[in-house]
């Protein structure tokens, strides 16, 4: 039975500001899940804390709205426990690359098979518009009393440096393209990172919908040129096609160089994709084969009468005097 978009809507009241870019991302996720016909009860959306992190409440799969900055380790625990579940992580840029930067970097080292979507609005929405790590040095959004005194982080570059094996960027008002990216990210075997440009009309008057649409960016004929473009359409191929280390290195470097493009011509699409890296699940199974065949969440641990199923007599034997 095919999943309909409406099957993925919940009864929870959505209290995002009118015009918030979060709506587009929510729609794209729901469209992707519907198109993939996922089993909602085998899917979980895990988030941190922030405006964007309220998103699980609006999607009718399992939803875990966690702590500020901790979406990744919560999701990691869920995926480790139940590797057969579809795990999607979402959260804000402050959540993911401010307070959560340590997890962002170190989870890149694991290559767990999940998708992480950052709502990149360059501000801390829910706490009233302070600068997020993606806001450029000297930028002054309407929420800031004076220009930002921190340099910004480039999420794509940081993801590449951290070892994500699928790295992409989408735009919250290009819902169809975003939906396609989400599907690719979910299908990717390994850790996928999707940075989504998300206008926050309430606090960020710089990276606005109008800005991305090309306001003030006119061609010779005075026509607005949108500030985003699709890399793939421009001939870019981020996919690693063989596990030859030289090819891998080339593609990594290409993605890093590509990540420098930002502003008047901001690339959307897949910067990098490498299906040849073992997942963390594979690696655990290398050490303990039953991790694959009988993963934690699938294991019975006791008989109906409560007798434990684990037999530790071999462990006790080692301790015999």
């Amino acid at each position, binding site marked *: 039975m095919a999943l309909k978009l409406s*099957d993925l809507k*919940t*009864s*929870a009241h959505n209290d995002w500001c009118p015009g918030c870019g979060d709506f587009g991302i929510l729609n794209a996720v729901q469209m992707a899940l519907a198109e993939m016909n996922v*089993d*909602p*009860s*085998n899917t*979980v959306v*895990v988030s941190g804390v922030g405006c964007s992190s309220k998103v699980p*409440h609006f999607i*009718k799969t*399992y*939803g*875990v*709205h*966690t*702590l500020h900055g*901790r979406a990744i*380790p*919560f*999701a*990691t*625990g*869920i*995926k*480790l*426990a*139940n590797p*057969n*579940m579809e795990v999607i992580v979402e959260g804000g840029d402050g959540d993911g690359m401010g307070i959560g930067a*340590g997890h962002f970097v*170190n989870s890149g080292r694991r290559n767990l098979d999940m998708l992480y979507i950052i709502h990149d609005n360059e501000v801390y929405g829910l706490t009233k518009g302070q600068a997020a790590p993606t806001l450029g040095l000297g930028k002054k959004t309407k929420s800031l009393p004076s220009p930002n005194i921190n340099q910004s982080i480039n999420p794509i570059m940081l993801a590449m440096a951290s070892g994500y094996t699928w790295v992409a960027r989408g735009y919250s008002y290009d819902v169809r393209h975003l939906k396609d990216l989400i599907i690719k990210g979910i299908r990717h075997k390994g850790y996928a990172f999707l940075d989504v440009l998300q206008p926050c009309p309430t606090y960020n008057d710089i990276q606005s919908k109008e800005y991305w649409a090309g306001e003030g960016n006119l061609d010779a004929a005075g026509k607005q040129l949108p500030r985003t473009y699709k890399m793939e359409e421009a001939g870019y191929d981020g996919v690693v096609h063989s596990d030859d280390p030289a090819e891998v290195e080339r593609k990594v470097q290409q993605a890093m160089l590509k990540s420098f493009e930002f502003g008047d011509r901001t690339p959307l699409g897949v910067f990098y994709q490498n299906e040849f890296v073992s997942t963390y699940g594979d690696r*655990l199974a290398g*050490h*303990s*084969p*039953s*991790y694959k065949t*009988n*993963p*934690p*969440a699938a*294991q*019975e*641990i*006791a*008989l109906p009468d*409560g*007798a*434990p*199923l*684990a*037999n*530790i*007599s071999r*462990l*006790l034997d080692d301790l*015999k*005097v």
Partner: protein
Amino acid sequence: MKRDDFSWMIGGVQGSGVDTSATIFARAAASGGLHVFGKREYYSNIKGEHSYFQVRVSKGTIRSHVDTVDMLATFEEETIFRHALEVRSEGAIIYDPDQDPKRLDQIPTVEANVRAALNAELSKAGLSADVKGIVELARRRGAHIYPIPYNTILKDVGAKHGETSLSALQRMLNVVAVAASFALLGYDEEVVKASVRNHFRSKPKVAEMNADAVGAAYDHVGQKYAGSFSYRLSPMKSTDVKLFVRGNTMVAMAKELAGCRLQTYYPITPASDESEYLEAHSEIQLDGAAQGDPQASEVAAMKKGSIAVVQSEDEIAAVTMAIGGGLAGVRSSTSTSGPGFSLMAEGLGYAGMNEVPVVVTLYSRGGPSTGLPTRHEQGDLRFALHAGHGEFPRFVLASGDLEEAFYDTVRAFNYSEKYQTPLIHIVDKALANSDSTMSALDPTKVKIDRGAFLNEITTAVNGEFKRFQHTPTGVSPRAPLGTKGGVNWYTGDEHDELGHISEDPVNRDYMMEKRMGKLDLADREIPISERVNFFGPEDADITVVSWGSTKGAILDAMEWLKQDGITVNFIQVRLVNPFPTEYVARLLSKAKRIVGIEMNYSAQLIGVVRERTCIPIEQLVVKYNGRPMSSEEIYGALKMIYEGNAPKKLVLKHGA
């Protein structure tokens, strides 16, 4: 006070095999049916600082260490300087006479104040500040001195095996020291050899050479010192000594038995040993029903499972990953010590708010801050009780000995899952790093209780499941993430029955009462026998209140006091939260004289007892110098209190 046990000590430079020798000694004694208790002391250092191991051996049950050293085995200078004067009169010191000229001022690892004190003693005695001098001082104080020519013995053994490498020979120093000790004690040479062979079983040639070293040491002692030392140690035929274990291992094994299938950790002393054990044993045999029943359930027979053991990037990740595992329906835990636990406060609150079972094993060490990372303290109790902002339920369980640590670990998962509440299991470092013989463990005594755990959701409305449904007990049926039949939500915000954010004040009251009420439920349901141990006669001269690893020393001291005609009873609180208020109050109200004993500065448990019972406990025995309490110290303290000579806060100070 008459001890009929034997206390042996060996010391050396960290990384030079002190541990190995102590283990060989202890195992050789244990395999002779003797009871053994071992305690290790070491610096927060990888190589070079002094470490020592004290092994107590007895024909009867022992549960603690003592301060007295009956025999000190050494093979380098620092141990002699640091410990020679601890050896009791008529005790023994084994040492290498080649060390005689080594001077105290050549040992940079000895602290200035320790050096100054030794220098003063030696110069007062008119002795030189070298090994020769200190050995002489020990002799004057009544110790028997046994010089052992290690190098000659080793060279002879080496020659026999064609081994000339000095470093290879040096690696046998420990074994010679152990063997010389046993030889002086008249212990069965073959038992020692077997123990050595067993220890080196993976390298047969090394094993044989070491066994020969044992023989050579026995020969030397036999020739030079036969019968010169009065204490004799001999194997016993049948005893209940079955296992020789260490705290970390007990907890690790019990976790596998309890069904823990996700363990996260960030390395930290002394917790990581447990996780590393689990990592090394992550394939689990699931034919456990066979343990009790030869006709094991077919479902399970021969099936294997796996515990995922994951090194996280920090302790925030460790605890939140474990909570993630808990949400997915897997018994999950993380192990840490103070600094790591400090980083888990926020995560704990999330688990409390979302009613997620998760077990945090807290190996308590010397604090505050980085503190004394390899030393002892029971300083984290109050923090464990209150960690995390706001109010949420939690269990705090503290084990007193290795056997308790085993069974408590299983209970920890049961309580946590049944009441859907985080649990902190405190195992203080004195347990984690002490070794002890014990009688056999019985995994069939253990029962797993998962509480209201759903395998399938049947009550969803429109696909939405009320995870936090109103129930009379406050415990709602719980379906793990991934359960078919519906979905639900979790949030750190206050939430409604579905798990959606709610700021409604009426819902808020209900949810607060639901969560906190589970502690009252647990208080009613969990039997007192699992929460408090009560030892000794109902009517006693002194009533001791304590918790955690002091248990062994208190019990040992109680026996000695009984010999002196002083009766003591002992309330050992294990489940500190929910606190067994009524039961403890009843016992205390009958007490003649109450003494709080704790290995911390402020007597934290006693504060809890005062808060809960409003019974003032004025007499305290505390210790906070980073060293565990010995049974001798507690014996002395209680005697002093009994005799009315103790200050209100008696601070114990023994330790090196």
